[in-house]
């Protein structure tokens, strides 16, 4: 096994002490909190089977993106196919830094750019919970990322431009409920991964936060959830949005379908009412933004089609890919 050892602690753990945690079961409260974090972080929709329908997190969802095809990996504690050989520190580094145990950088299809904001105690609880789950022997599939993602340093360059690591810092002038909602939406729920349009490098456009996009997952459009009165959800109140996150019902009595329905069933529905209200408070406090159409839209079909002609790109072998570079 090839693992970059970067501290004495790692040496100690790798020398065969990784089994210790399994012998002293984690207290039930920690596991309960970990399960809650798995719901809050929306792990299930991507990691539970191809349709997000498995009982376990053995991976499988396929992401067709302008940057290639990606496959959600197995995150059950299986020692060969899952994360059963990881340490808690390696798990924390994966979420916090987007770096795999062997030192490779993850593609940002794994929303570590959000999870980096998670707090240590929440990561610890999540790790304890995931470690307590049954191991599933399903091999993770290799990603088929675009050729230019295989270039040495590609991910490092991307990270330099678009990744600012570090846990969530509460904004002191905002009420506790707002900060809780912001933490849940930004560090865990990663709403922006679908609701914020992307720039040419697939980065989330901070200036267009939550404004929606015509080029969402599965080729479906994703609605504007800023409090813009016409284009967004400015006519919803906090209770409307909190109830939507519980039931999928809009104030008009329509029901959401598609991926949002999964996001609710696999996550939001399981949160406390107080947490859903906190998310609603935060989202409705954001700046209202008009849809792109009214401003002259960025041609989102160009995202990912950068730098070199397609014919050349397609002639390149796709090569090994998961994760990105060395």
């Amino acid at each position, binding site marked *: 096994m090839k693992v970059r050892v970067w501290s004495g602690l790692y040496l100690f753990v790798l020398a065969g002490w990784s089994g210790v945690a399994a012998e002293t079961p984690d207290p039930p409260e920690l596991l309960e909190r970990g399960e809650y974090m798995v719901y809050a972080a929306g792990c299930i929709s991507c990691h539970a089977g191809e349709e997000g329908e498995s009982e376990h997190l053995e991976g499988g969802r396929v992401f067709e993106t302008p940057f290639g095809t990606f496959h959600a990996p197995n995150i059950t504690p299986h020692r060969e196919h899952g994360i059963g050989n990881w340490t808690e520190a390696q798990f924390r580094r994966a979420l916090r830094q987007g770096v795999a145990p062997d030192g490779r950088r993850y593609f940002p299809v794994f929303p570590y750019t959000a999870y980096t904001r998670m707090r240590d105690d929440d990561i610890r609880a999540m790790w304890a919970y995931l470690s307590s789950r049954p191991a599933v022997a399903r091999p993770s599939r290799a990603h088929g990322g675009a050729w230019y993602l295989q270039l040495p340093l590609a991910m490092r360059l991307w990270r330099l431009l678009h990744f600012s690591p570090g846990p969530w810092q509460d904004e002191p002038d905002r009420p506790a409920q707002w900060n809780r909602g912001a933490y849940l939406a930004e560090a865990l729920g990663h709403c922006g991964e679908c609701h914020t349009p992307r720039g040419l490098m697939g980065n989330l456009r901070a200036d267009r936060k939550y404004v929606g996009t015509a080029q969402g997952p599965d080729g479906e459009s994703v*609605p504007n959830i800023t409090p813009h009165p016409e284009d967004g959800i400015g006519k919803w109140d906090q209770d409307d949005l909190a*109830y939507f996150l519980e*039931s999928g019902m*809009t104030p008009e009595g329509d029901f959401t*379908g598609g991926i949002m329905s*999964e996001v609710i069933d696999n996550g939001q529905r399981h949160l406390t009412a107080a947490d859903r209200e906190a998310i609603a408070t935060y989202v409705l406090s954001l700046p209202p933004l008009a849809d792109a159409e009214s401003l002259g839209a960025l041609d989102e079909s160009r995202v990912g089609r950068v730098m070199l002609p397609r014919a050349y790109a397609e002639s390149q072998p796709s090569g090994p890919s998961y994760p990105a570079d060395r």
Partner: protein
Amino acid sequence: MMRRIKPVTTAVLTALLTVGPVAGTAADDSEDVIKYRQKAMSSQGAHVSAMAQIVRGKVSYTGHMRSHAVGVAGVAAHVKSMFPEGSDFGVTDAKMAVWENRADFEKAADESKEAADALVVAVDSGDGAAIGEAFKTLSQSCKGCHEDFKKEDD
């Protein structure tokens, strides 16, 4: 990119050439069928969102529950017939799966109808907890069907 002619389209074109308009009952224009079903589905939404206010205790009009539930159950019985072959043209949020996976669609529509009927039964029982549960089941059924058969709004 070449656009493949869908089987449904072929069927509709054939029908148009032979027996005239086919959507809904014999003479209905498919755009009118779409318009009609959107209005009918909006009325379902209006009833359901009104019931949500009552079920969640925001208002105390518990005596109104039955009217709303009966309304939803009545229209739920018509859902299958509101999506006839050929009504996939025009401005519709219906996914092609409505016609391509017809058996699944009809099963989902039947389940919604059953969930709405069960809500009427629960309302008649007067048991608050049962009403809450039945309402939740109906909501899940609406959402489940939209997940597979309705496109998201922009």
